[in-house]
């Protein structure tokens, strides 16, 4: 469904992503794990169309152009960015309506909206509140619900558990798991490797803009490098936060 070949992204003279190859098959949950500054967020932002890049990104057989976020959304790619990206000066309801912005199937869109309100009762209860007044967990729910309303085939989630209380973080991971059952393909960027490998089918470990290892979640859970770095090892290469 998605393939990256030799992806390079520059921030001015700095090469943040240095030749990443990556594949995501339809229906999978694939995780990108790695420390701060490894290039995970940059990679998904490039896929979503927010950044210029070199190399090739193909989605459903089509080559994606750099910096074409609006077109990529129409093609079926949605990104929930790091920090949630809610529109804080709009109400919860208006944020959800923005999720329908690109859709022309009005009747189905209304049905999806009703379903989303059922699925996230808290968003229904706080429909008229400003989105900035929601708690971090509620904002994350809003951001995911809004992205789902565009009916993406590939959902990119950038650190969805960042800054959340453990209980809320568990809820977010359960939600990600449930997406697989609905046929949404997920590319998940996370630093919480243990929880991530529990929900993911496969994962890539990034370090300084390169893929250093990849495999199924089970393989990587046993991988000494991952284990050392993220799953309770003591080398301290990863800086969580």
């Amino acid at each position: 469904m998605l393939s990256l070949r030799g992806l390079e992204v520059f921030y001015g003279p700095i090469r943040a992503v240095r030749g990443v190859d990556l594949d995501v098959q339809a229906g999978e949950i694939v995780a990108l794990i790695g420390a701060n500054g490894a290039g995970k967020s940059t990679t998904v932002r490039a896929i979503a169309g927010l950044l210029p890049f070199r190399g090739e990104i193909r989605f459903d057989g089509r080559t994606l152009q750099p910096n074409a976020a609006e077109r990529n959304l129409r093609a079926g790619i949605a990104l929930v960015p790091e920090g949630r990206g809610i529109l804080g000066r709009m109400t919860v309801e208006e944020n959800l309506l923005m999720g329908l912005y690109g859709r022309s199937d009005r009747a189905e869109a209304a049905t999806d909206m009703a379903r989303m309100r059922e699925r996230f009762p808290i968003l229904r209860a706080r429909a008229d509140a400003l989105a900035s007044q929601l708690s971090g967990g509620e904002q994350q729910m809003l951001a995911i619900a809004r992205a789902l309303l565009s009916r993406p085939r590939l959902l990119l989630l950038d650190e969805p558990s960042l800054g959340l209380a453990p209980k809320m973080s568990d809820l977010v991971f359960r939600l990600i798991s449930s997406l697989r059952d609905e046929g949404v393909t997920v590319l998940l960027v996370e630093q919480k490797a243990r929880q991530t490998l529990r929900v993911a089918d496969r994962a890539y470990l990034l370090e300084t803009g390169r893929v250093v290892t990849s495999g199924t979640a089970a393989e990587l859970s046993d991988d000494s490098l991952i284990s050392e770095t993220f799953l309770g090892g003591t080398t301290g290469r990863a800086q969580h936060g």
Partner: protein
Amino acid sequence: MLLQQLVNGLTLGAVYTLIALSFSLVMGILGILNIAIAELFMIGGFLGFAAIAAGLPLPAAVAVGMAGAAAIAFLIEKIAYQPLRDAPLITPLLSTLGVSIILQNVATNVWGSDPLQLPAEWFDRRFQLGPVSIGAMQLVVIGVTVALVALLAYLVQRTSVGRALRAVAENRDIARLLGVSASRITLLAFMLSGALAGAAGVMISLHYAAITPYVGVETGLKAIAVMVVGGVTRIFGALIAGPLIGIVEVLTVAYGGSQVRDLVVYGLMILILLLRPQGILGGARTDLGQRV
């Protein structure tokens, strides 16, 4: 006398409100001051004059002024803003300043630098309400302003396009991720802004039954004052600040003389900003983001 001056002040304030909203729309989306708006106001006025002179009815003259100013705003976006989008903010500010000088020059060459005037009997019907005498054109100015502000409020607050405008104003990248074409919305903001300035130009020139190519600078500066006084993050702050500045200006002229008019108006602006740097409706001081 006082009531009469208040009505006159409201009329002037209505026009300031429209131009201030015009500045706010572009300011909110892009964070830049499109200085050329002051001259779009002037061009709108001339087009309205030309339409009336050609025998068109008043609504058509307003429509011509709005459409003409919106079309020029389209060109300004394409030529003087879009290519400079990634440049420092001062660059588009200077390019729109350049456009405004060009527009004034064009108007001087096309219509001459002497004031154009409508015959005194044009639209001179007046209504007497007790001690207050209201000209038909004053009613038109206030009525059209109320209608346009209501329309703009509906568009910005209640429609999908309005939400997209606000989304781009709040966070351009997030809006793009939601499928909003930020460049198209920017162009729309320029054109809406031009249309509002054009409408204001038609109405003020017909109200005074006179126009010169230099009317834009003075009125435009007052409208910027209205926008600033209204509040940095509140687009509709102009609804309070416009009538306020209009009334203060008219009362100053009536009771203090026109020689102290600008001193009082801009003095008031500085005073309000000293007391409330965020403007009348500016909200919290931390709320200094973009507008709309």
